[in-house]
């Protein structure tokens, strides 16, 4: 029997074991050429993350260190920060997201072109951290889908590199049918005046 996950993936029925039971993927499943091509593309994607650094808070200090000479994110092919969301693949949410900031984060996510991944950097992005109050979003996964969670306040650079490697592993296992992800499943709550 299939298991259905969440609202956004309701159209996809996923069987334990990982094969998708219906949709176009079924026809292509087992096609050797497509599988090899997919593996090659995944290989390319995992070594070529263009980052969009959504840096808001303290974790930015550690983010600088991760990009700096000692830890050197560039070794994994993820050093090119693109400040235009159109060109970025990996949205690095570095730091606390307040309710005032949330619509902007969602907008940036929606502006990014597929395929796109999200990296929650630091405990504030993961769960809101110890700021459990009126102004802080309790984890960015309430707004946008997240691929890797790296806790820590701020996380040490080693943890960030580990998170990046985990993401690479995840990307290597992806299928064509995982894309596109589409826009973030959120709706405006309060009317915001400009």
């Amino acid at each position, binding site marked *: 029997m299939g298991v259905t996950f969440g609202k956004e993936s309701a159209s996809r029925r996923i069987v334990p074991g990982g094969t998708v039971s219906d949709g176009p993927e079924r026809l292509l499943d087992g096609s050797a050429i497509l599988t090899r091509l997919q593996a090659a593309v995944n290989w390319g994607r995992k070594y070529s993350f263009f980052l969009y650094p959504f840096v808001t808070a303290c974790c930015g200090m550690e983010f600088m260190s991760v990009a700096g000479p000692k830890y050197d994110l560039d070794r994994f092919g993820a050093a090119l920060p693109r400040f235009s969301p159109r060109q970025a693949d990996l949205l690095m949410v570095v730091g606390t997201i307040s*309710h*005032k900031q*949330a619509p902007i984060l969602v907008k940036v996510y929606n502006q990014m072109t597929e395929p796109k991944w999200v990296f929650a950097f630091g405990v504030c992005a993961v769960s809101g951290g110890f700021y459990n109050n009126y102004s802080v979003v309790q984890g960015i996964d*309430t707004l946008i889908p997240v691929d890797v969670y790296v806790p820590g306040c701020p996380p040490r650079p080693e943890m960030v590199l580990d998170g990046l490697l985990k993401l690479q592993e995840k990307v290597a296992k992806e299928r064509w049918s995982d894309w596109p992800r589409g826009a973030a499943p*959120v*709706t405006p*709550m*309060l009317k*915001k005046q400009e």
Partner: protein
Amino acid sequence: METNVTIKKLSNRFPGAIIETHSHRGDDTAVVKKESILEICTFLRDDEALLYNFMMDLTVVDYLGREPRFEVVYHLFSLRHNRRVRIKARVSEADAIIDSIVPVWVGANWFEREAFDMYGITFKGHPEMRRILLYEGFEGHPLRKDYPIKKRQPLIGPIN
């Protein structure tokens, strides 16, 4: 002692406007009537013996249950005399309006906006009295003691 020169001068100059004074832990403090805050600030800035040219900080304390409920607290600093003073003005909840001191120190602009944002005190004569740290559409003033700490007003999202 020369430490309370400021308070002495203030009491001499504005005998009717000073409600009380103290120097707890060496911090000279004067509680003044809110109607005369602009006049007192101008005096503190311009008097030769005082010259409080820095408006260091402006904040509000919410004494819930006391009347008047709010205290607007000004911290001033004189570079020439290397001296600090704290001026407080009490504002009631029903009439939460006080004169803006932006004409005296232009730097007070954002501090007053923040006080408005967090405590809902209106500063009369302020050039741009609107929220600064929170967003338009946020209801209530979060630093008031009766605002629940976890009462969220999200702009976006199904959750939160």
